[in-house]
């Protein structure tokens, strides 16, 4: 258990630094690359939490596809890739206060509610087979709906971005 806690601490620290850099850096491309650190760290946390399939999906979709989309978006919407000093709103101090209040509230509530609640020591790891069985039986209708949503989003994105 100690090894897991050490791994958690290292990954969580990397994720925290990455998340802070995503919202504070002055360079859009650097923000996308810091986001890779956060998303990859999340995948590692999923492995720690015995959810391998979700971890692999996270790497495939987020690190593989979403980040590439972000970099494309950056390329297509900015003539100059590099530092920019106008990325923050004027009211960013208010946003900071809101975020700190939110973090404080959530932290207080979580510590109050769960305290020293331990995760199960040796959980029965859910296999990919069980996950897919669940998707294709219990969650079949939501899965279909999600397929329609993805198709609609795909067509919608093409229609929106088309030049005519």
């Amino acid at each position, binding site marked *: 258990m100690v090894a897991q806690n050490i791994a958690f601490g290292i990954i969580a620290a990397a994720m925290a630094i990455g998340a802070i850099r995503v919202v504070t850096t002055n360079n859009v491309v650097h923000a996308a690359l810091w986001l890779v650190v956060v998303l990859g760290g999340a995948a590692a946390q999923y492995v720690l*939490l015995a959810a391998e399939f979700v971890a692999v999906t996270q790497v495939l979709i987020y690190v593989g596809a979403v980040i590439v*989309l972000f970099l494309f978006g950056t390329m297509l919407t900015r003539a100059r890739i590099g530092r920019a000093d106008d990325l923050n709103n004027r009211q960013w101090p208010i946003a*900071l206060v809101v*975020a700190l209040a939110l973090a404080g509230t959530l932290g207080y509530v979580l510590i109050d509610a769960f305290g020293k609640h331990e995760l199960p020591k040796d959980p029965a790891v859910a296999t990919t087979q069980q996950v897919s069985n669940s998707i294709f039986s219990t969650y079949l209708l939501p899965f279909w709906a999600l397929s329609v949503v993805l198709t609609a989003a795909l067509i919608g994105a093409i229609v929106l971005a088309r030049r005519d």
Partner: protein
Amino acid sequence: MLINQFLLLGAFLFATGVYGVLARKNAVLVLMSIELILNAVNINLIAFSLNNGSDVNGMVFALFIIAVAAAEVGVGLAMVLLIYRNRRSIALSELDAMKG
């Protein structure tokens, strides 16, 4: 492992994402902050899934959220592209056509 260490990490990511959404002017950076928020939710879901004895329901929900996030970012970036094409800028503070 305590469940709280994962939940607190999720809370931290969520608050950071909220800060990004509120403070950033660049539309692409706002979309990135939304990804931070969605990831915070996913970490919570997987943590509770393990807490309930590796319950697959939490994992399925997380997978659905990942898919919806991918759709959202595709449409969102297409909209950002359209805004850029029409206005030569993606600064959200300049999108004030509907301001009363």
